[in-house]
């Protein structure tokens, strides 16, 4: 019963008053920012990352994890009430959630989302605690060649999720890798792509890139849309689902949890893939499939459980392998590095308190989310009635303050503006920015592991296919590319995104 001991250790740490407070602050702030229209979890975490710099490593991670769930929950709220998903992972919630809200059933939709997410979060946390140690032990055997191949696999897998063209997504990953190399080269000490700008010798901060490409880009795109948004606030009369709702929702919650937990672990997976897959599954197997798109509670319960389960289990590759699975995990990776922790299998053995404390706090965070948000729903709805023309200057101001506070240099805000413009142009050209941020985080690591692998093998590139694990990752990556490039599957993938 090793797991009980570990979880006991974790809860011991996570239940300290300070850590509980951090969790509470994180969940509240995350929901507060995440509920703002057009601000998804990635932008929310980027905005709030600077305020965690001064905390202890565990406190910072607990708060950030809380921010993540909070932001995701906030995203579900805007999806249901406004048909305005903060990030792609809550797009499918719009379909039936908004429809339910229009029929005056916004309350049950919100409650189902919250309760389903809580259940899924509990299960996923338990799974994480069960499987992480084994995966960690496996990862400890990895050498540079294995790591290089794993990262290549992870980056390729991430492109599968991008909308549109696969080649463009890969090109965005490469752009990210290159941007990640800006700054002082770790092995030679030489400044690369610095152009004699002093501030660039430390490289570009992850907060700067993420806030630019997600935050600024999103503000500009929202201003361009200027569409009429009607908040369905007057429709939230009763909150609790009826007995009939519960009876219909729970099988979907179970299925969503299972789908989400599995898909979250995959590199490139996480909440987004989970919610899409769950909605597709529900539409196939539910007894009420004819009601989908017209306010079926299954269409909210399944994807919402799935995205929370996926959000939870997507911590697995980060904490055990040191590979971020999606853009949110890329920011968590950045946050750990800032705190002086190198994400990877050694975290569990060297810092068991941090590892298990974080996992225990995930469960606590999910509980807080339910306990706080159901009563506070009225407050979040009030926030939604504030017109966007008043909200975006405030959001922009907070981003400026956040990015400035990282290094107290005006240059970071200049870079943020640059990345905002770059992100906006990329979106206009149908190139999604999300793969770029993964490449950005992994750039220096990919290079370092490739270099070390080459030194060890004396310059023999076949080392990458000589060990079974490394070869396996590379073959998997190649197969993934071939599979997606097949015309049949490509059509399916495009349909999956168009449909929603």
């Amino acid at each position, binding site marked *: 019963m090793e797991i009980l001991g570990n979880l006991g250790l974790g809860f011991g740490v996570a239940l300290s008053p300070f850590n509980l407070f951090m969790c509470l602050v994180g969940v509240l702030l995350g929901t507060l920012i995440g509920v703002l229209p057009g601000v998804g979890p990635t932008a929310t975490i980027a905005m709030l990352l600077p305020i965690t710099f001064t905390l202890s490593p565990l406190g910072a991670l607990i708060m950030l994890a809380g921010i993540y769930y909070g932001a995701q929950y906030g995203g579900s709220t805007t999806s249901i009430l406004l048909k305005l998903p903060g990030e792609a992972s809550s797009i499918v919630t719009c379909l039936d959630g908004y429809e339910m809200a229009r029929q005056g059933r916004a309350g049950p939709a919100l409650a189902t989302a919250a309760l389903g997410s809580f259940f899924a979060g509990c299960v996923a946390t338990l799974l994480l605690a069960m499987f992480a140690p084994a995966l960690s032990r496996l990862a400890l055997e990895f050498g540079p060649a294995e790591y290089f191949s794993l990262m290549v696999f992870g980056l390729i897998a991430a492109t599968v999720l991008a909308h549109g063209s696969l*080649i463009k997504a890969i090109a965005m990953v490469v752009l990210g890798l290159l941007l990640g190399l800006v700054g002082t080269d770790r092995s030679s000490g030489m400044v690369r792509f610095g152009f004699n700008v002093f501030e660039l010798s430390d490289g570009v901060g992850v907060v700067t890139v993420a806030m630019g490409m997600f935050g600024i880009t999103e503000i500009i795109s929202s201003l361009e849309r200027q569409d009429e948004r009607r908040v369905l606030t007057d429709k939230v009369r009763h909150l609790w689902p009826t007995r009939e709702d519960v009876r219909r929702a729970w099988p979907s919650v179970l299925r969503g949890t299972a789908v989400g937990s599995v898909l979250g672990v995959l590199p490139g997976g996480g909440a987004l893939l989970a919610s899409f897959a769950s909605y597709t599954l529900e539409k196939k197997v539910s007894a009420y499939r004819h009601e989908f798109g017209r306010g079926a509670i299954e269409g909210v319960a399944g994807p919402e459980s799935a995205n929370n389960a996926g959000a939870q289990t997507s911590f697995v590759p980060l904490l055990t392998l040191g590979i971020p699975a999606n853009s949110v995990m890329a920011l968590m990776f950045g946050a750990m590095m800032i705190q002086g922790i190198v994400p990877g299998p050694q975290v569990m053995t060297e810092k068991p308190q941090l590892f298990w404390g974080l996992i225990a706090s995930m469960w606590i965070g999910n509980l807080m989310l339910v306990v706080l948000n159901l009563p506070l729903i009225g407050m979040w709805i009030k926030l939604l009635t504030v017109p*966007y023309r008043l909200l975006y200057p405030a959001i922009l101001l907070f981003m400026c303050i956040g990015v400035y506070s990282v290094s107290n240099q005006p240059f970071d805000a*200049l870079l943020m503006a640059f990345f905002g413009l770059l992100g906006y142009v990329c979106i206009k050209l149908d190139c999604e920015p999300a793969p770029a941020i993964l490449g950005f985080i992994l750039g220096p690591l990919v290079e370092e592991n490739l270099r070390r692998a080459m030194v060890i093998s004396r310059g023999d590139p076949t080392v990458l296919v000589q060990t079974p694990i490394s070869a396996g990752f590379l073959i998997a990556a190649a197969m993934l590319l071939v599979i997606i490039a097949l015309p049949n599957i490509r059509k399916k993938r495009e349909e999956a995104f168009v449909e929603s």
Partner: protein
Amino acid sequence: MMRIKSQRDFWAGVMFIAFGVFFAAVATTYPMGTLRRMGPGYFPTALGVLMALLGVVVLTRSLAKDGPKVAPLFLRPTLFVLAACLAFAYLLKPLGLVVATVVTIIVSAFGGPEFRWKEVAILAVMLAVGSVLAFVRALSLPFPIWPAFIG
């Protein structure tokens, strides 16, 4: 006669080629090393070349396959939002948080669909007070509150 069938792909290809060539060209000025001992130039050069090649593929495809036109960039929000970022960054140290906040809010509000002076003024004042309380008082960020020449 070549005809561009997919504008978005065409310009995306151009962008990738430009970035790829740029990074590769700069990287080749760094020591290359060998495969066994990679210098600082090795990996970025390879990535830059890869990116340019991907750009060529995207561009070539744009001549063959039909695709949507590039939607116009909306200049008004773009310019004012970016200008607001820069205003904050370069006004904070000389003029303090209060002035920087007010200017940032006003400039960014010009990027929106409609601009109402009264509303924006109230918002700016509220946020100036709020950010001083939250960021300087509560989170104790080392920001000056007032212009340097006042005090």
